[in-house]
């Protein structure tokens, strides 16, 4: 039982969950406008790499994060242009972008830093760790909640902000409407494709933050393909959370906890394969209970036209 009371387990859960949560929120925005973004993995990777590049050239962490956002915005422009303007299949574009991101980052790693595999520099400064004034003095809880990078706190603020945005603002309703029934939305004078562009760009910015947290927050280095499936996990978290910000946060926390747990269990002689498998099995089981919603069927339609 001591094991589950260990505060550092939960603290590392929060660290692990942040990149997944940020990307999953981005995925939720895209899903809400009827574009199913399989390219999250690639977007995070671009964010992670450009954060390191920004840090290397400016030496300023804040500028590095901004640079990461900028780069992922440019990259997500490709996605939106291909899928909205050229009406290419979103899944195909997403898959292609994942590959492009993997190739581009590894290639640029060679071109910019002239190293292969990973870039690490001991002078590089990562994201600062914030000690929250009053919170950090609470015995057990303080250990968990305090001492994280600003992006960790930002991600949870964003959950609330997005929830309010979706369900309490006019723009939010327009966004939901253009996903649920584009034709009806268009007849009301809502500029559907403009909203879709906006959603994809928002998703890009969030993935940029996710990447920055991955390469500058959790560690201070870049490794080839360091996302290692986190984008797909985020995608699954989006689905499991029914593209509701609060739900997405809940399912991301589940994945983050399992991630932290499986790392912790490596210390014991327990096979980690099963703890790592658990979130996927839970997701499949959960999908039995949360069935199709209206906007999901729109997403399905765009998925199923495979040619």
């Amino acid at each position, binding site marked *: 039982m001591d094991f589950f009371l260990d505060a550092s387990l939960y603290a590392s859960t929060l660290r692990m969950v942040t990149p997944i949560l940020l990307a999953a929120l981005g995925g939720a925005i895209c899903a809400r406008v009827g574009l*199913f973004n399989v390219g999250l993995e690639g977007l995070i990777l671009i964010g992670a790499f450009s954060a390191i590049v920004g840090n290397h050239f400016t030496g300023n962490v804040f500028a590095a994060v901004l640079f990461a956002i900028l780069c992922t915005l440019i990259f997500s422009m*490709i996605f939106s242009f*291909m899928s909205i303007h*050229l*009406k*290419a*299949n979103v*899944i*195909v*574009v997403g*898959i*292609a*972008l994942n*590959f*492009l991101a*993997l*190739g*581009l980052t*590894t*290639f640029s790693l*060679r*071109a910019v830093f002239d190293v*292969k595999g990973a870039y690490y520099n001991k002078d590089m400064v990562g994201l600062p760790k914030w000690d929250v004034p009053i919170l950090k003095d609470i015995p057990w809880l303080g250990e968990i909640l305090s001492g994280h990078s600003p992006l960790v706190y930002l991600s949870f603020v964003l959950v609330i902000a997005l929830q309010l945005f979706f369900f309490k603002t006019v723009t939010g309703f327009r966004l939901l409407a253009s996903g649920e029934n584009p034709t009806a939305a268009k007849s009301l004078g809502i500029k559907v494709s403009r909203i879709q562009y906006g959603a994809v760009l928002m998703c890009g910015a969030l993935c940029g933050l996710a990447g920055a947290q991955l390469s500058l927050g959790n560690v201070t280095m870049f490794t080839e393909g360091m996302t290692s*499936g986190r984008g*797909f996990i985020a*995608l*699954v978290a989006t*689905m499991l959370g029914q593209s509701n910000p609060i739900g997405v946060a809940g399912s991301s926390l589940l994945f983050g906890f399992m991630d932290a747990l499986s790392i912790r269990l490596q210390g014991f002689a327990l*096979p980690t*394969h*099963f703890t*790592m*498998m658990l979130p*996927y*099995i839970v*997701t*499949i089981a959960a*999908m*039995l209970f949360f*069935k*199709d919603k209206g906007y*999901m069927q729109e997403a*399905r339609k765009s*998925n*199923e036209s*495979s*040619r």
Partner: protein
Amino acid sequence: MDKLLQLGRSLLQPLLAVFVGLAAGAVAISIVGGSITETYAEMWKGAFGSFYFFTNTLSRATPIILIGLGVALAFRAGFFNMGSEGQMVLGALSAAVTAIYLPGPGWFKLTAAIIAGIISGGIWSAFAGWLDARFRMNLLITTLLLNYIATLFAGYIVSYPLKDRTGSAAMAQTVMIDQSVWLPKLFKGMSLHGGFIIAAVGAILLFLFMRYTVKGYETRMLGGNPLFASYGGVQRGKMMLFSMFISGGFAGLAGSVEVLGTQYRYLDGALTSPGYAWSGIMATLLAGSHPLGTAVAAILLAALQTGGMGMERNTDVPLEVSSIIQAVLILFVSAKFTYSFIKRKKAGS
């Protein structure tokens, strides 16, 4: 003459995409300061330069062709099967286990191993199809999820119960398969093995199946126009189970021939890290789900990959130029749908 024109038109877009991909690669090469012609020459040499390199390319293409065929069938029926990776891994694992533990003569074990691979890949894939048909669970997500479960399960099996403890204990792998069960090499001293013939035959059989059988027609109809298909009496659920089983069976077969022809054991990560499954999906996309086209596209992608390795050996240009070319290629082919979409829109409504 009309037919020829039509063929030319359908080839135009992929050829254009190849050209754009190579142009993007040229930009990347010039950024790192390499000579474009020299680099592409090295790439060509690495893929087709000698008989040895050519067979290397073909043996890399073998699993990609098989996976691509499976995905192509599912696409044709209108299902996005993203689970080839898990299906391939389970197929490979069961083929390895059958080949190691089944008693009997070599040819018998070989056949049994291949069949075991097909069946387990097929069942894993049909399971996702069943979840969709029975519970309306999104196939795209379930197949993605089942990938992780399959690779983790296979990883567990070879790290604990069936781990090879004879040699260096560092690798998570099964023991070596007996030499009598290996797929024969086609040429002495080359890596190309009998699996390539299986893949080529598979491509032709799938092409004939889609073209000339009732089932094949129903599959195409379901993908092309689901409403019309259901009006014509095609049951979506049944067809889904059927096409997903075959689709996964091809992926399982891909895993089996890799194990029986190249690695001779199940080695954790040896099938997932080269990204065979994704290359297979890309080959299908490139060929617009045409079985024979998929085989050709798979060889093209494999040539880009082996060529990239050759290029990296002999020049300063990094290997990843070839993955940039591949990705740009797919992006441009995906715009093909649009191209025909615009035309149809102009002609129709």
